[in-house]
């Protein structure tokens, strides 16, 4: 069967066509507006956050994802209905509802976080349940126990900033560009991770996260040393020291979760999971603790619609079909 996934939860418009049979899937196409030539076709600078941008992008992105196949050939349409920016989500949901209404295609709705959990298995076989899932992105940092498809228990989440948000904010403090993750990762490779002892909020006794204090510590360190935000040795060291704090916390919390639940399977996903230093450290921990680690390749870590199509396929198999009265939700716990 053919299933189309659409995600407009944040800044990117994404669509992906999946071919699925007997639980096995194949990605036919995976289009994300920020990564393709679609953007340049329309030229000009459009506000990143505007739902108007999604309105302009949704047709060309879906058309490219459909690869010449008619929308009436779809067996299911899977759309992300939250969490995210409400105006952006509305575009994807309204588009999906209109297509399903006019073609009679079954509509399936998917939580963005569920997509991230399953993204680790777009190109890997699904492991035995239960497994642990750590999602680390610009908008989320959360840890789940996954008992089965659509059976998720939250073990912990950030109490303030998401890990990726800390990267973006620190990147801005250091005068680097956006997205912050890539800029800091690049600089950190040249810096000394032990140069500055930034705090690590382990929050003992819980599996929650906190990255707000780290961001503040970086700001204060910049202030006291009176650094100019223009390059130089110190900026590299700050980037490396900051990154080492984030990674220490993520790895240790994953380790605690493994110890507490005695589950020896861990999936790592979300935009920050594309960070090679984090992947390396998590891999070392997994080898040391004899844990099976699953992480999607970097292109499938960041927001994409293949994960939405995949999660939608599981909902479809479970006969969990959405009504045409589907409404997006900005706040939508998994």
């Amino acid at each position, binding site marked *: 069967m053919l299933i189309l996934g659409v995600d407009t939860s*944040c800044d990117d418009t994404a669509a992906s066509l999946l071919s699925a049979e007997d639980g096995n899937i194949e990605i036919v196409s995976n289009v994300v507006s920020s990564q393709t030539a679609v953007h340049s076709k329309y030229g000009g600078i459009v*506000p*990143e*956050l*505007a*739902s*108007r941008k999604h309105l302009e992008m949704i047709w060309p992105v879906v058309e490219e994802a459909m690869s010449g196949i008619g929308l009436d050939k779809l067996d299911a349409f899977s759309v992300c209905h939250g*969490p*995210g*920016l*409400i*105006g952006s989500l509305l575009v994807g949901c309204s588009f999906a509802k209109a297509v399903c209404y006019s073609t009679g295609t079954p509509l399936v709705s998917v939580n963005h976080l569920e997509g991230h959990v399953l993204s680790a298995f777009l190109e890997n076989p699904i492991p035995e349940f239960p497994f642990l899932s750590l999602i680390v992105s*610009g*908008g*989320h940092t959360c840890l789940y126990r996954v008992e089965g498809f659509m059976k998720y228990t939250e073990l912990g*989440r*950030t*109490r*303030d*900033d*998401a890990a990726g*948000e800390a990267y973006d*904010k620190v990147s*801005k*403090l250091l005068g680097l560009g956006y997205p912050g993750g890539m800029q800091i990762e690049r600089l950190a490779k040249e810096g000394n991770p032990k140069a500055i002892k930034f705090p690590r909020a382990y929050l003992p006794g819980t599996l*929650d996260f906190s990255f*707000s204090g780290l*961001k*503040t510590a970086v*700001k*204060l360190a910049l202030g006291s040393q009176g650094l100019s935000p223009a390059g130089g040795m110190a900026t590299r060291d700050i980037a490396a020291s900051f990154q080492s704090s984030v990674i220490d916390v993520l790895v240790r919390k994953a380790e605690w979760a493994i110890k507490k639940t005695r589950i020896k399977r861990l999936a790592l996903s979300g935009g920050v999971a594309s960070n090679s230093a984090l992947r390396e450290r998590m891999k070392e921990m997994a080898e040391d603790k004899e844990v099976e680690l699953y992480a999607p390749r970097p292109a499938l870590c960041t927001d994409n619609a293949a994960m939405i199509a995949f999660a939608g396929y599981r909902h479809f198999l479970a006969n969990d079909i959405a009504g045409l009265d589907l409404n997006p939700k*900005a*706040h939508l716990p998994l």
Partner: protein
Amino acid sequence: MRLISKSPRETKDAGKRLGRKLRAGDTVCLYGDLGSGKTTFVKGVAGSLGIPEREIASASFTIISEHEAKPPLYHIDLYRIDSEADLETTGVYDYIGGDGIAVIEWAEKMPETEVAVRVAINIFPGDEREIVIEGMEEDP
């Protein structure tokens, strides 16, 4: 009103005290640099409305985060907003002066809202914060 906070807990307490005086339709504009404790202050306001503190995290990603309470709390964060067009399409204006309390972080990114409580948090040396609250009647 001006006070000095020596810890996140004291910042939260200040938020809690302000929260108790707020009514549906009120807007609180928060001003302060990165790391000054704006979200911590919002946690306090939420606490006064009976919203679990853990529910309040940074709203930078979704811009608007709704929390059910009586009255509801609309936690708004304009950190990522760069233009007037962005501001309008996010729907922020729909939340101001409505059925709930709107608390806006990075309020300097929008035009001055009339009849708003203004809270400025300044970072002082030695990890202290100065919190200045304007537009709210003083305790008798």
